[in-house]
């Protein structure tokens, strides 16, 4: 046996105890003062020099801290990476039935492509045909309803959802869906309809207390959106799983406590999840917000502070590293973003951008130049990534950053590079609080969609 290259050992303040984390398994363990030196000795291969407690080696193997000598961890990860990218039992679609929106968020990256109009009945049918023509091995169809604001085209969503469900029922497969919505139209009646049509989860963005949120995410006419969205949230949290996304930059980071005050006052703390997202300046018009954005490193610190704050106030922290085969669906063969006119893209950020179009739902998917670019980019092409101790939880980071944002087309590290240790310590603190009964178990765990 040998030590994994992906072990992270952190000292705890109390009594010479340690935290042990492995990036391949993402198991997190506490080592007490008696176990820690033996654990370390085992990692160093000193198996004969220590009296090993029962099951310790087994537990270390279970957490991938110790692995068999013949295992090449990078090669193994790479095999999983490529196998995962070209599996065809799942089709993942992000569908925007409209790019119109009732809000005018100051940082919207769709400003250049936003326009009226909704998906036609013809395009709807083409999407259904596109799915049915998919590989016979298809066992699962997952759809994210996206926009624009998808609820401006609710009828299309409900109609397509019925067709998808019928199709997957015939295949004896499964259909699941979620939605990214600004929440303004998401009243209880709508939530009921969505739930009946397979939507299980919705992400809604609130950027701070009313004045802050409304200045960043006003309605088309300039008036605020916060009060209606908040009211809607209180009406739907028993129907759908809801997570609040907070887009954070240098101008609103201090306002997060005020937002938490309001959510707590509405009794929402244990009914929905919350996570903090780094506002980023993408290409085109979105560059206008660049000066207010944090750098990755700076945001890593801010993010940790915000989760620390949330934890202290009794919120559950969903932020925790996960092993992944690929960073997201954009580099997978069987995942597409579809705009209201049936154009296919690989990444949400590129919707409506003709340069990034990879096909159309009415046509056979081909390996054109743009499509191939997404399908072959990989962290395993870069020696820096191959040697990286956090590769299993980063996988080269966001491929959009690699392929579009970075002129040199090299990966941009995930923030785990900067705050993994801090987040692990927060997880430890949360676990400790749970044991002490200071934090309720939140039924809605924060997850995220992009945006």
């Amino acid at each position: 046996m040998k030590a994994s290259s992906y072990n992270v050992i952190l000292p705890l303040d109390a009594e010479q105890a340690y935290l042990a984390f492995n990036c391949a398994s993402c198991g997190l363990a506490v080592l007490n003062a008696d176990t820690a030196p033996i654990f370390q000795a085992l990692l160093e291969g000193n198996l004969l020099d220590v009296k090993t407690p029962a099951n310790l080696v087994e537990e270390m193997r279970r957490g991938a801290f110790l692995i068999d000598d013949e295992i090449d961890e990078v090669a193994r990860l790479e095999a999983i990476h490529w196998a995962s990218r070209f599996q065809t039992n799942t089709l993942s679609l992000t569908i925007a039935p409209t790019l119109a929106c009732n809000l005018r968020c100051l940082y919207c990256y769709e400003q250049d492509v936003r326009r009226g109009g909704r998906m036609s009945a013809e395009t709807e049918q083409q999407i259904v045909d596109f799915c049915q023509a998919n590989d016979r091995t298809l066992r699962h169809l997952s759809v994210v309803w996206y926009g624009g604001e998808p609820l401006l085209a609710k009828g299309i969503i409900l109609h397509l959802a019925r067709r998808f469900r019928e199709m997957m029922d015939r295949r004896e497969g499964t259909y699941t869906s979620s939605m990214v919505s600004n929440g303004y139209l998401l009243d209880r009646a709508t939530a009921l309809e969505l739930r009946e049509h397979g939507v299980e989860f919705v992400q809604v963005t609130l950027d701070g207390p009313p004045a802050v949120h409304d200045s960043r995410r006003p309605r088309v006419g300039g008036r605020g959106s916060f009060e209606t969205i908040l009211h809607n949230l209180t009406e739907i949290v028993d129907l759908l799983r809801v997570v609040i996304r907070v887009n954070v930059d240098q101008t609103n980071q201090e306002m997060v406590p005020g937002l938490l005050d309001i959510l707590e006052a509405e009794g929402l703390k244990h009914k929905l999840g919350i996570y903090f997202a780094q506002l980023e300046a993408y290409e085109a018009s979105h560059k206008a917000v660049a000066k207010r954005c944090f750098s990755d490193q700076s945001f890593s610190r801010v993010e940790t502070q915000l989760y620390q704050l949330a934890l202290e106030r009794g919120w559950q922290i969903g932020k925790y590293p996960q092993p992944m085969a690929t960073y997201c669906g954009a580099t997978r063969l069987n995942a597409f973003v579809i705009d209201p006119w049936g154009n296919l893209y690989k990444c949400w950020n590129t919707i409506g951008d003709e340069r990034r179009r990879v096909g159309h739902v009415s046509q056979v998917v081909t390996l054109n130049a743009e499509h191939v670019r997404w399908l072959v980019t990989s962290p395993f092409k870069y020696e820096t990534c191959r040697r990286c101790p956090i590769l299993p939880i980063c996988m080269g980071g966001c491929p959009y950053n690699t392929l579009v944002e970075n002129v040199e087309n090299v990966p941009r590290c995930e923030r785990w590079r900067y705050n993994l240790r801090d987040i692990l310590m927060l997880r430890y603190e949360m676990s400790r609080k749970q044991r002490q009964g200071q934090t309720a178990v939140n039924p809605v765990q924060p997850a995220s969609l992009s945006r």
Partner: protein
Amino acid sequence: MEYIVEPTGGEVPDAPCGLNACGLNGCLINVICGAKACGLYGCLIDACPVLIAP
């Protein structure tokens, strides 16, 4: 040695949705997979029936 977050079994798991869990950075697995979540930290890995063997 006491796990406060259980390991995934040493394998990189895949989800029924075809995507993988990446925590909170844009991955969809947590929300669209439809499988039962492990309940502790928001991911579905522990419950995921689709594991890619090494």
